[in-house]
């Protein structure tokens, strides 16, 4: 077997120096710019989480002051939601893969793509400025009138940072929509597209339709805070619940922005990990669209106890049950894909299993919340915290890591250490469950969220959770080490180290700047794993 070598000419060595990176229009380089940025924000947000869990190990809240704690959970939420979970998969994996998976040379608007990164960094800079110059303590949800009339912290710089970053999401979404519509290679019909593209498309629809609403909401909050306009402050004639409607109209679909791309990654991992088509391809594809559409109709389930009328509550409840169905359909389809597959136990596949299991639990706990009577008891408690961390961390972050590992050889041209990778996946899985499962129990017991100090009888569960968090933290650090190490010392991967099917595996690892030496002409369906078909164009 000949030694695999890196290709002589590829996108990473096509031009050196800082200008070739900061002024690049290559979607693959922009993806790496995003990778560096989201990783940075992830560890900032993660550091706040560690601090929070350390403080919560004792009931008295004696590690940090009240004000500091309130800033910690706010900044943890802001960093994680707006600067990691929303951009990570679309802007890193999506940017890298969308053109390649559809057989294009780049996205429709490469300069706009670079501008999106700069906008993201500018938003991040404002938020970091808010952070270092005193922090903000409103919670990532900015409820009024506290955020407009009571908080004395850096609300406006943070709000501005989020406002600016929102444009990055909007422009990336717009770029993906146009690219997928107009730049598919000859023969690449909609129903031959990889499911990752379907998910990215559905996500981009939400990005484009939902993000502008949070943008205007933030402007209204900033105007109220700066000029004492009275939109949300009852003392000035405003309605505080109106803010919640506007806020959640975006922020509920936002959680689908976070999870749909993850589901797209999982579809790819499962197909490659079983070497067969995803079971029920068109159902999975339409389920993505259904989630995007229904996701816009359920925002009121965040407000069951917030002063919503009984009738609105009922409508939002029934719609919330309905939005669970397409997700369930996907879970069943992925599981069915494994039946009679050639099932791999490599790291990306392990992350996919982890996603499916943990997303199932997280999603099912969503049913608890859609049932209004139960939600009345558990809303604003640790039950909610556990629910969304199961989906965001047990779901999205696992899928993100799975995707990073799966496409790492394509992105870098190198293989990472499989043993260490499996070990990290295991540590993350154990750490994650130890951190968040006790929180379901705590929530039903009645421990409210955003509490700095709590009654003593909640301590044992909190200590378990904090122990889990330290394990989870270690689990996240190890991949940083071996992935960085592989960049220099890893074995060359070759174009298709997984024996997978997909246009990205037909080009070199790393790919050339223009992705393909010749535009591919597609005559096959996605995931056609057949022993003798050669898919190189």
């Amino acid at each position: 077997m000949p030694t695999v070598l890196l290709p002589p000419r590829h996108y990473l060595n096509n031009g050196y120096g800082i200008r070739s990176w900061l002024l690049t229009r290559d979607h693959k380089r922009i993806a790496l710019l995003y990778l560096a940025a989201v990783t940075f924000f992830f560890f900032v947000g993660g550091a706040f989480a560690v601090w929070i869990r350390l403080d919560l190990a004792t009931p008295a809240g004696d590690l940090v002051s009240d004000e500091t704690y309130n800033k910690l959970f706010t900044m943890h939420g802001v960093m994680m939601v707006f600067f990691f979970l929303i951009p990570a998969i679309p802007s890193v994996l999506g940017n890298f893969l969308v053109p390649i998976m559809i057989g294009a040379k780049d996205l429709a608007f490469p300069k706009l793509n670079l501008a999106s990164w700069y906008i993201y960094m500018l938003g991040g800079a404002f938020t970091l400025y808010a952070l270092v110059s005193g922090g903000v303590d409103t919670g990532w949800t900015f409820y009024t009138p506290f955020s407009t009339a009571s908080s004395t912290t850096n609300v406006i710089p943070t709000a501005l940072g989020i406002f600016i970053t929102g444009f990055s999401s909007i422009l990336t979404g717009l770029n993906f929509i146009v690219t997928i519509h107009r730049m598919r290679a000859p023969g690449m019909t909609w129903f031959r597209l990889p499911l990752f593209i379907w998910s990215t498309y559905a996500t981009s629809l939400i990005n484009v339709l939902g993000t502008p609403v949070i943008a205007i909401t933030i402007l209204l909050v900033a105007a109220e805070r700066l000029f004492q306009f009275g939109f949300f402050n009852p003392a000035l004639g405003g309605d505080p619940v109106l803010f919640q409607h506007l806020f959640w109209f975006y922020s509920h679909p936002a959680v689908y922005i976070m999870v749909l791309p993850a589901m797209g990654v999982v579809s790819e991992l499962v197909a490659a990990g079983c070497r067969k088509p995803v079971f029920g391809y068109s159902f999975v594809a339409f389920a993505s669209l259904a989630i995007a559409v229904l996701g816009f109709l359920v925002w009121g389930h965040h407000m069951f106890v917030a002063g919503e009328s009984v009738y609105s509550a009922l409508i939002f409840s029934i719609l919330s049950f309905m939005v669970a169905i397409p997700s369930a359909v996907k879970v069943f389809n992925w599981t069915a894909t494994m039946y009679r597959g050639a099932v791999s136990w490599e790291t990306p596949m392990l992350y996919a299993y982890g996603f499916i299991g943990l997303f199932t639990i997280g999603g099912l706990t969503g049913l608890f919340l859609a049932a209004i009577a139960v939600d009345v008891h558990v809303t604003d408690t640790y039950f909610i915290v556990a629910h969304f961390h199961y989906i965001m961390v047990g779901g999205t972050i696992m899928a993100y890591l799975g995707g990073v590992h799966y496409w790492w050889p394509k992105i870098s041209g190198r293989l990472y250490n499989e043993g260490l990778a499996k070990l990290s996946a295991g540590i993350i899985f154990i750490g994650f469950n130890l951190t968040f499962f006790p929180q379901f129990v705590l929530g039903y017991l009645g421990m409210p969220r955003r509490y700095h100090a709590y009654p003593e009888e909640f301590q044992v569960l909190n200590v378990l959770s904090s122990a889990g968090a330290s394990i989870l933290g270690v689990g996240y650090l190890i991949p940083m080490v071996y992935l960085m190490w592989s960049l220099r010392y890893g074995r060359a991967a070759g174009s298709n180290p997984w024996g997978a099917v997909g246009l990205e595996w037909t080009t070199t690892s790393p790919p050339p700047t223009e992705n393909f030496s010749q535009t591919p002409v597609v005559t096959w369906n996605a995931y056609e794993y057949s022993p003798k078909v050669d898919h190189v164009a």
Partner: protein
Amino acid sequence: MGTTPLFPVSASTMAPRVDALYFFLIGVTVFFSLLIAGLIVYYAVKYHRRSTDAVGERIHGSLWLEVTWSVVPFLITMVIFVWGASVYFAIASPPAETLNIYVVGKQWMWKFQHLDGQREINELHVPVGRNVKLITTSEDVIHDLFVPAFRVKADVIPGRYVNIWFNATKPGRYHLFCAEYCGTRHSGMIGEVVVMEETEYQDWLSGGGQEGSLAAAGEKLFADLACNTCHRPDSAGRGPVLTGLFGQTVTTQAGEMVVVDEAYVRESILNPSAKVTAGYQPIMPTFQGLVSEEGLLELIEYVKSLQAQPQAQPLSDAR
């Protein structure tokens, strides 16, 4: 280290109903989680890839499976929806006869006002076995009143009244938390609900309330603020007669029908030109900034207490 409970006490009439649904949901969750996890592990082992170029079987899908695993979850969720909705109706509908207590939340404490005049801070005494309705509002930002043992919770919102009702079934002391982040000492805005046997509760009631009942305080405030110059007991005043008015439905100048409840009385004091009664001029000045939240509660209780003379009008049937 003390006890580590894993399940909250059930101390109200609603609690067992909520818990029953909760256990059903746990059952559904455990079933499907084990099913999926089990299948994954089973398939991963049974179909483990044996050689580096093995491929899976080309199975594209199955329509009847898709229909089954769409319809069955849909039916299960509809069962949960109906069950949850019916329990929710009960939670959201206070019974007709309740013992009312006013609650004002402010950063960072709870103020409870009993009708007879007792005021409590962060501690709420209630009798066991009686329907209690808390009429809540906030003085500043949004708070939330949460009693885990009763399974009740509602946001306490500035500028409006929100009702919470419960019927405590077990004497004891239960946690009360603020469950909507409200600033620095949010986690300090806690207290206790003290549920007492009826006789003990009566003893406790008679022990306090030196300031007199809320309605009496309201009567005094009504005179101090000169409300009585326009709102006279006969119809010669410039404002509507308030006797027997609480609980009635009136027509506004704009043609809207409104019920005279706590919220309407409050709005009429703070924003009088919003819903002027038909047939009257919009000349009432606003008392925004001139009356505190406590004052508003006292005035409301006073207006409620203005019963008609027995022979003149039917009794108001709402409290």
